């Protein structure tokens, strides 16, 4: 039995600055097994994974690899064992080519003289092959700086596929991916599995857990709740194991929307080469979904509406007034706010406290004669922390110390407090756990109920379906469908998004 | 120009209170602390002066501190002056980087009973008691022009380039002013075509000189009143194969010029006796401390001989024109 175990971690403990975040967790992986790791934001999943990947050292506990006790002192030690990890936040080298990013640390080389030369041709060819396997068209010579967050995620995945892996750890690899890319990823993972690789898979999309994994380890507050066979579970049961209570994501009790006058009329909005002739209306109180494959141009449309990347032509009419939105400040002043998809780049300042991040857009209102009011700010941000259930010790904690999902709530919080007219949410629940997701859904719905018009861009189809009153579908920079409630289904959306009839698991 | 460097030529009428200073260990003297501050350290010129000063300091019962900024900065000199005052120095002898910036600090020093003299580069007269003047601007400027003019005697218009140190150096500027005036009045065939700067860096000087030679093809002479500039100009002339075609002269230390004089790139250059300047400064310091210094007339500085004093200025004498023979003899 025990020789069937490739990796066996016993009683791992890790604390940061006196706070124990992983409290004696076991995990066992067998070759060819796909094992899910689930839990709320901040449950300690990434921390556990980082101990297996050599990023963090456990305070106590031991890790056995193929029966022998090992110290995984740093990432290259993990690599030597055959343990490769796709971390939660993509960390690419923006000024280097995609291919170099993929191979960094393992650059194909020819030895000649004292130097080790990079075999560039081999590198580019290899990289192209990897992306072909991923069924993605990617210019491997372009600089990583130009990639969207989803493309970055694909590069991260590609990095782990160039090795002979014994254990492949995937920390929320699908958070930015749409169904299409996710399917491709799963096909590859299944093949690796059949070759004997053990997979440890983290996701907040429980459907994926059920479709990919045979076992699931549930964590809550740094502890292991238990290990279960997925065949013996269903989604609701799993959620209650994670959260300790029942949650219904599809709570659709919504006020009927009366579509009288649109608050926002967008006509023929164009910004080549990103999108063209985008025309749609948005009504007060409506939640409008926007679906599409990665790179369809949704984010670009949002950025045009928010003014950070203004459109070249076309018209934006807000509350009957034609606007030329040239920058974010103007958009915000008009009541348009935007939760960006790349939260590390555009959403938060990681090394500043939660409070500072949450109050930045409202700073003018929160200060008197330009003098800040720390107490007022604290009160407001504590309120937001409570309302959004941000898991933190204090509002003065640095955002970098929060789990990914909680960071997302911070971004969300800074806009909710501004009482906007139009809220554009770009992947609003990327990396957010089920519990928080339902809270965010609740907030989105109640905002909409108070008359806020919401545009939700999401690659998570169940999310689009759960939230939207109406769905726009984008494909290659154009709006290809406007589906009302009656016509909403995953199949229908995917058909428009891909242009072919797709099957969805 | 700098108003401080005034001409003392023709000042012979002033003979009323000639007195001889009693200096050089005849009487039992008390040791005094003297601070000697050059414009900057690390330049052979000032190092030469310090050697001259050191050679006479002990016989004058002077405890000498020689220290200056590493770059020619007036503000560094001010903070040095302040700390010497705080440490109870008797005399401060400074070669000023700026005639006016040092004035408040020096006046404050005098108010506390410290004797202040300047050497090599003066401050406004109200901020010091004596200025030991190495040579008048007239002397330097006209000599440089004169030897150049003699070299080109009988020729038509001669284009001349000037390579100075920095645009703000007061000594350089006053010398260049005199050169211009002398040319205008006596040698109208000389024609200054450009003034460039070496920023006191050999490579900058070399590049500047090369560029001058190329940009002004008719230029026949380079005069550099700066000890970095002369060897740089000579080097440029050699590099561009213009030896014999471009005449190089200026103010420089003999030891620097030896190689260029030896190989014939430079025939003549100008300087005063720098160690003697340092030594004279020490004699003046001693006399000022003792209260035996005359305000005008003649001042006898031990073995150095006697020097003319007028309006609080002690004049070292006229600059020397060095040629191959005298360069070989000089050791500074």
């Amino acid at each position, binding site marked *: 039995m025990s020789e069937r175990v490739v990796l066996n971690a016993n009683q791992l403990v890790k604390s940061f600055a006196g706070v124990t975040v992983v409290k004696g967790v076991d995990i066992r992986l067998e070759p060819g097994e796909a094992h899910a790791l689930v839990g709320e934001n901040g449950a300690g999943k990434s921390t556990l994974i980082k101990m297996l990947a050599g990023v963090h050292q456990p305070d106590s506990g031991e890790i056995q690899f193929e029966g022998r006790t090992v110290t995984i002192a740093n990432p290259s030690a993990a690599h030597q064992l055959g343990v490769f990890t796709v971390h939660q936040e993509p960390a690419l*080298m923006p000024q280097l080519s995609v291919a170099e990013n993929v191979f960094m640390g393992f650059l194909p080389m020819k030895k000649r003289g004292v130097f080790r030369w*990079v075999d560039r041709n081999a590198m580019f060819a290899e990289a192209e092959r990897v992306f072909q396997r991923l069924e993605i068209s990617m210019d491997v010579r372009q600089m990583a700086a130009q990639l969207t967050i989803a493309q970055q995620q694909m590069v991260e995945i590609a990095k782990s596929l160039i090795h002979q892996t014994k254990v492949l750890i995937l920390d929320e690899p699908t958070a930015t991916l749409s169904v299409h890319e996710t399917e491709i990823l799963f096909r590859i993972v299944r093949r690796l599995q059949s070759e004997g690789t053990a997979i440890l898979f983290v996701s907040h999309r429980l459907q994926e857990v059920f479709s990919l994994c045979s076992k699931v380890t549930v964590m809550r507050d740094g502890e292991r709740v238990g290990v279960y066979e997925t065949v013996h579970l269903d989604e609701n049961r799993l959620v209650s194991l994670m959260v300790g209570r029942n949650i219904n994501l599809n709570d659709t009790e919504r006020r009927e929307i009366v579509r009288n006058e649109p608050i926002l009329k967008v006509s023929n909005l164009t910004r080549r080469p990103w999108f063209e002739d985008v025309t749609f209306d948005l009504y007060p109180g409506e939640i409008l979904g926007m679906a599409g494959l990665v790179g369809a141009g949704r984010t670009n449309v949002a950025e045009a509406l928010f003014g950070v990347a203004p459109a070249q032509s076309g018209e934006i009419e807000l509350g009957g007034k034609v606007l030329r939105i040239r920058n974010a400040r103007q958009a915000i002043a008009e009541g348009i706010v935007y939760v960006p998809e790349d939260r590390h780049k555009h959403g938060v300042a990681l090394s500043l406290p939660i409070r500072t991040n949450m109050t930045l857009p409202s700073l003018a209102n929160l200060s008197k004669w330009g003098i800040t009011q720390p107490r007022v700010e604290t009160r407001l941000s504590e309120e937001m922390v409570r309302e959004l259930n941000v898991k933190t010790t204090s509002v003065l904690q640095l955002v970098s110390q929060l789990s990914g999902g909680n960071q997302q709530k911070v971004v969300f919080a800074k806009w909710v407090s501004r009482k906007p007219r139009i809220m554009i949410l770009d992947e609003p629940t990327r990396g957010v756990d089920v519990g928080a997701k339902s809270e965010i859904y609740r907030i989105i719905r109640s905002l909409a109920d108070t008359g806020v018009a919401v545009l939700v861009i999401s690659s998570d189809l169940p999310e689009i379906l759960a939230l939207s009153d109406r769905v726009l579908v984008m494909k290659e920079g154009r709006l290809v469908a406007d589906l009302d409630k009656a016509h909403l289904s995953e199949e229908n959306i995917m058909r428009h998004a891909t242009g072919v009839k797709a099957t969805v698991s | 120009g700098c108003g401080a460097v005034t001409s003392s030529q023709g000042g012979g009428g002033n003979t009323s209170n000639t007195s001889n200073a009693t200096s050089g260990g005849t009487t039992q003297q008390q040791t005094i602390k003297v601070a000697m501050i050059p414009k900057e350290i690390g330049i052979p010129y000032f190092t030469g002066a310090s050697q001259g000063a050191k050679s006479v300091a002990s016989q004058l019962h002077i405890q000498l501190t020689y220290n200056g900024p590493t770059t020619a900065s007036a503000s560094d000199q001010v903070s040095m002056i302040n700390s010497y005052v705080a440490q109870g120095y008797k005399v401060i002898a400074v070669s000023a980087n700026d005639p006016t910036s040092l004035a408040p600090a020096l006046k404050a020093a005098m108010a506390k009973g410290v004797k202040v003299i300047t050497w090599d580069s003066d401050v406004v007269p109200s901020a010091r008691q004596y200025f030991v003047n190495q040579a008048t601007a007239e002397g330097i400027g006209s000599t440089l022009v004169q030897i150049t003019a003699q070299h080109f005697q009988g020729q038509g218009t001669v284009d001349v380039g000037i390579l100075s140190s920095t645009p703000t150096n007061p000594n350089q500027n006053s010398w260049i002013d005199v050169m211009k005036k002398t040319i205008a009045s006596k040698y109208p065939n000389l024609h200054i075509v450009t*003034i460039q700067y070496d920023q006191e860096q050999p490579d900058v000087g070399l*590049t500047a000189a090369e560029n001058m030679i190329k940009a002004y093809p008719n230029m026949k002479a380079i005069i550099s009143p700066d000890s970095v500039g002369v060897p740089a100009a000579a080097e440029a002339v050699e590099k561009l194969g213009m030896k014999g075609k471009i005449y190089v002269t200026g103010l420089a230390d003999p030891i620097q010029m030896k190689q260029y004089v030896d190989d014939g790139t430079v025939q003549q250059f100008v300087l005063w006796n720098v160690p003697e300047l340092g030594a004279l400064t020490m004699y003046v310091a001693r006399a000022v401390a003792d209260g035996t210094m005359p305000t005008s007339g003649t001042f006898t500085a031990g073995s150095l001989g006697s020097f003319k004093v007028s309006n609080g200025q002690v004049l070292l004498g006229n600059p020397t024109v060095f040629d191959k023979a005298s360069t070989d003899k000089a050791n500074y």
Partner: protein
Amino acid sequence: MAFMVLLLLVLLVSNPSFLKPGNLMDILLSTVTVGILALGEVGVIVTKGIDLSIGAAMGIVTLVVGEAALAGWPIWLVVLGGLIVGAVAGALNGVMISLVKLPPIIVTLGTLSVYSGIMYVVTNGQWVQNLPSQLLALGSFKLWFLPGPVLILLLCLLVLAVFLRYTVTGRYIYAIGNNADAARLAGIRETRIVFLPYLIAGLLAGVAGVLYIAYNGFSTPSTGADLNLEAIAAAVIGGTNVFGGRGTALGAVLGAVLLGIITEALVFFHLPAVWNEAAEGLIILVAVISDSTLIRKVNMGRG
């Protein structure tokens, strides 16, 4: 460097003698020192570092080389000594930055002071001059039509460019500068990779120092004081980003050449020298701005 071409064209039209091959070679000659030092800065700045002491390190080398030559050492030993002194100066920076993890700007500001002080100590405040002709020959030899120093500059450029672009270690230098965390996750040993550029910079300061004294014929205790910022400027003008991750060897040398052209052009335009720096600043601005807008345009077009 499109602007550079433009500048050269303007010069050609206004003063044809400027672009004579001999003159161009002279410009290259006058940029050798700054060019080599700028090459040293590239690797350093790519790793998000900076070396403010590079001119002072070169200054020490000029003095040591000069003194050693005057003391009658054989010329190969003199050169070797110069390179070693440069490398040691660079290594000292490197150790404090990579191993002790002190901020590069502070370390090199500190060593700038220390090295400048040492320059006076080495020479006792005197200049180094009247050098033996074997040493001076290093500055004036020619290979066919190429002056020796230019040849060595080109050699340094070639080696460094190839090293940075085509070797594994070179790519690791970029990786660290781009995203040190990601590089660590990829198993790159940070300490070693951060150390290397400083060593290289020191070594190049050694090369530059030997050439400087051999070419200029003398050196003073303040030699190189003006080159610390100029070398950085050349590298940055050539496209090296002070926030790390980007920069090329060729760019740095082109940056140095641009500075050289500007200096010479100003004299050719018969501009009073007090205006030189203003014109230099203005041309740098125009050059960098026009290049960056050009680059932006190209990127847009490509997208």
